[in-house]
């Protein structure tokens, strides 16, 4: 029940931000060689797809991409119930020696990214793993920091950041909502 909503990014601002993130990823990687973009289920996957298509357009390349569902690597599986829904993981590329960029919608405690790092290690040994997030809302519980940030927002403990993507939510937006 979101009482009050505050729009952080509208559709056009979100599009601009993702294109800038795409450029920063290419810059960070010094080109697109060995680059693999991996989105975290769920909304990280759609954001990763946008970033990949932006890179492909700009650089005239085909950057490989994949999707990672980290549910089975969560550190709270012994405590949460009922069982969280497991989404598909699709990472058909050999990641050994590659530059993997993880894309997620919101970075908060860092626990999702910890799980993603563990899962990637089961797929191989990338030369480097970087992290790109659309929103950094602070509140880290683990020593994990992003390399590419769309926007940093100040969010209170009673607030929630919702990233909406048109593939799943019918529109693109980033919203801060009050939670009771």
């Amino acid at each position, binding site marked *: 029940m979101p009482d009050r909503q505050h729009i952080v990014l509208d559709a056009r601002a979100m599009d601009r931000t993702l294109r800038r993130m795409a450029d920063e990823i290419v810059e960070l990687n010094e080109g697109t060689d060995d680059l693999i973009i991996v989105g975290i289920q769920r909304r990280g996957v759609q954001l990763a797809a946008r970033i990949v298509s932006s890179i492909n357009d700009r650089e005239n390349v085909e950057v490989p991409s994949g999707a990672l569902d980290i549910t089975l690597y969560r550190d709270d599986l012994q405590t949460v119930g009922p069982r969280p829904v497991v989404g598909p*993981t699709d990472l058909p590329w050999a990641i050994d020696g590659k530059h993997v960029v993880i894309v997620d919608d919101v*970075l908060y405690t860092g626990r999702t990214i910890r799980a993603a790092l563990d899962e990637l290690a089961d797929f191989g040994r990338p030369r480097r793993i970087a992290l790109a997030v659309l929103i950094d809302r602070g509140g880290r*519980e683990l020593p994990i920091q992003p390399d590419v940030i769309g926007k940093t927002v100040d969010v209170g403990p009673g607030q929630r950041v919702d990233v909406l993507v048109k593939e799943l939510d019918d529109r693109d937006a980033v919203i801060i909502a009050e939670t009771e």
Partner: protein
Amino acid sequence: MSGALGKDLLGLEHLSSDQIRLILDTAEPFKEISERAIKKVPTLRGSTIVNLFFEASTRTRVSFEFAQKRLSADTVNVAAAGSSVSKGETLVDTARNLEAMRIDMVVIRHGASGAAQFLAERIESNVINAGDGTHEHPTQGLLDMLTLRDHFKRLDGLKVCICGDVLHSRVARSNIWGLLKMGATVGVCGPRSLLPNAIDQFGVTVFEHIEDAIQWADALNILRLQLERMQGGYIPSLREYNRVFGVSSERLARAPKDLLILHPGPMNRGVEIDSDVADGPHSVILNQVTNGVAVRMAVLYLLSGGKPELAEAAKGGGGR
């Protein structure tokens, strides 16, 4: 609490279609794990599971064991022969002794119908029925349904005929109850002596002739003919059974469409199924085996964890 399935998986008769769908949907992402170079996720790390097998089984036990190991659980196999079971210890005493060693789950196969439920009511651990007498074999029913759904993209409206020894088959019961719940139409075909007397009450269509079943069905699930049934006087001879009820490519050639062929194994080639059918292009018998691991991983996952006292201690953590 133990999530949407409750504490145990004892059979499909008392599950809802939503619960069955949850298991089948959860099995989908688990298929991918078995395709990885490192076929293992840390999900059940620290969980201890006992596979308590009072009847011989290779396929089901190995499948459960792969599922458990790919979820990082620690497993112990107890076979009835060579255990204190053979010294006359009761089922409950055996399970309580295992539970005193702090286990989390028991996978049980037993010759007596109702054994899994009997156990589930008496121990705290999650219980998964891996076959009890002639009652149910729920994970086999689930993997059969997953294999059918993979191929047809639906179960609703599908016509599935279960062929052979329905009377003694827990696989048949789990399939009938599960498929009917999911909206499929179920037929059975076999000698009258190998169909339950109360078959009319199952809500299935009975086919006396395998030719009629083949005309009607989208898929055949061909049960293993237990060879000891011949001694029991249920059928005159294996050759006779093959001649009347055996699924051969000649018979299938007369069907109006290609039938999907399932068999829970182990097969008696040349008895209930001919080799060219078993190895033919429409056989999904090995897909069933592959799906078995994914379905069992899904069941283990859905029944596991969620300890409320730990949730209290971890409050404040979590999130992204």
